[in-house]
């Protein structure tokens, strides 16, 4: 088993494990974390692919993509967390089918 395989298999494993978590965990923070780990799994696949060249330096392109991907993931995670916290402060629970604890009558689109 090559170095590439180790990384990519680990990445694939992380991907499906966190996909399971995403589906089964109702809590928003869990879901966001699951998505983060899923991205981590994909980044591992990239790293594994970068490793397969026979030169001492790995292929820089997957690394660059991972770096870009991390920033993108950080950005979307930050927004998702802010949203989750706001939902928590509005409803008292960080889940999608939230009970309406504060009884907001003005619900409805605009």
């Amino acid at each position, binding site marked *: 088993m090559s170095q590439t395989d180790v990384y*990519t298999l680990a990445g694939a494993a992380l*991907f499906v494990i966190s996909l399971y978590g*995403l589906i089964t965990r109702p809590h*928003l923070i869990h*879901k*966001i974390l699951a*998505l983060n780990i*899923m*991205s981590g*799994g*994909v980044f591992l*696949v*990239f790293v594994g*692919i970068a490793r397969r060249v026979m030169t001492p330096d790995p292929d820089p*392109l*997957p690394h660059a*993509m991972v770096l*870009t*991907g991390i920033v*993108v993931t950080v*950005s*979307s995670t930050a*927004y*998702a967390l802010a*949203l*989750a916290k*706001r*939902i928590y402060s*509005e*409803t008292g629970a960080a889940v*999608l089918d*939230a009970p*309406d604890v504060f009884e*907001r009558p*003005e*619900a*409805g*689109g*605009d």
Partner: protein
Amino acid sequence: MTDALLVHMPALAVVVPLVAAPIAFLAGARWGRPVALFATALSIPVAFVIAWMASTAGEKLRYQIGGWDAPLGIGLVVDGLSATMLLVTAVVGFAITVYSLGYFAEQEKYRFFWALWLFLLASLAALFLSADVFNLYVGLELVSVAAVALVGLSGKRDALIAAMRYMLAAILGSIFYLFGVALLYGAFGVLDLAHLAAVLGPDVTGQAAFALITIGLVLKTALFPAHFWLPPAHSNAPSPVSAVLSALVVKGSFYILLRLWTDVGDPSYVPGMGTLLGVLGATAIVWGSIQALRQERLKMLVAYSTVAQIGYLFLLFPLVEIAGRHVADAWSAGVFHAVSHALAKSAMFLAAGAVLSRFGHDRIEGLGGLSRRAPVTMMAFGLSGITMMGLPPSGGFVAKWLYITASIESGAWWWAVVVLAGGLLAAGYVARVVVPGFAKASADASDADVDAGRLPKHMELAALSLALAALVLGVLGQPVLDLMVVGDPASGVIP
């Protein structure tokens, strides 16, 4: 000088809204308005020039960013398809901007609207032009974050939860997509679409990559059964945002699917995939329409109509696979449907927003007398409904015409049945709004009320113009039909 400027047009299509976005962010609520109006107005001539460039060139044009050639650098690709999508984005974007000038009073909670809005338009332009699978990932994320942030803008409970659901689906879709990109790079060592098309072979990794990317994009396009996030998000967003989400944002991810399955590869690359997408599309048409028939709120109805109309886009894949590419072409049908639906659905959501402003609610049973209280809005809704039903002379009719032709020609007549049944179901849900609209005004709406609280003219006219555009597209659409196949080697049409 003009030549030099022309060369840069593809870059300008992205740069104009992208520069305007941080300016609008700095300028704040009041001064963001002229910035957005100027930038979106400027995008229209840029898009027209790009369309003109594409059709005079008659082939794919490339703009290599940074001066680095593919496969090292990232290219922008201008062909009929990208030019068409840019054109629709520019037109719809401008109309929604005009509408939004009236829709968003200078409320504190909407102070970031203009910046987010311009970011969204810039990211759509970037998406439609990109010739690089990884760059498309960044573009997709840009679109998603901007769209979700716009959905949650009102800060209302339902809007926040809808935004969250949308966000989770969008991120999940992006991750699937990114996994696919990793496998594509692993299998073929390139990211550029044209290079990918050249080296694409029957390879397990490549096929898995296509499948993963398709799962991700199907999630983002809200194709049945991955549509669960769309109705709450599109109905709870502020109406101009609903309009852009249904008109353009879902088309963004569909556009990438189209590129991959008909430009880079073809629907037979992964056996059964074309048929699967078609079956899901057909189910979406029926399911979305039935749900639309059952909704109590207007915006939910319109949102479920989007679920149904998205289904039509996906009929393209099986029909291209079995019917091939003819003059009466399923591919053209799908793209033309995307264009006319973009115009009509944005009109419909803008009209729904006008109804909300006018009535203070959007309960369908309470819309009695709409045609008297807001005749222009009623007209906009009705006309865009014609496109949803696919009746002539609308653009939706031409799309359905092509679909039916392709399915009869290829002997796969059941797709034609779905298309026709979907039209009748659409008539059903459009009638649910139009019929009470013609009813005598309900008791709470006296005649004195007719003149009270008139909507700003430019809001209603923005909706009406889009609806009319969708309508005449069916008769005057030949330039669009000519444009969208430019540079598409499979079309067999030599411009």
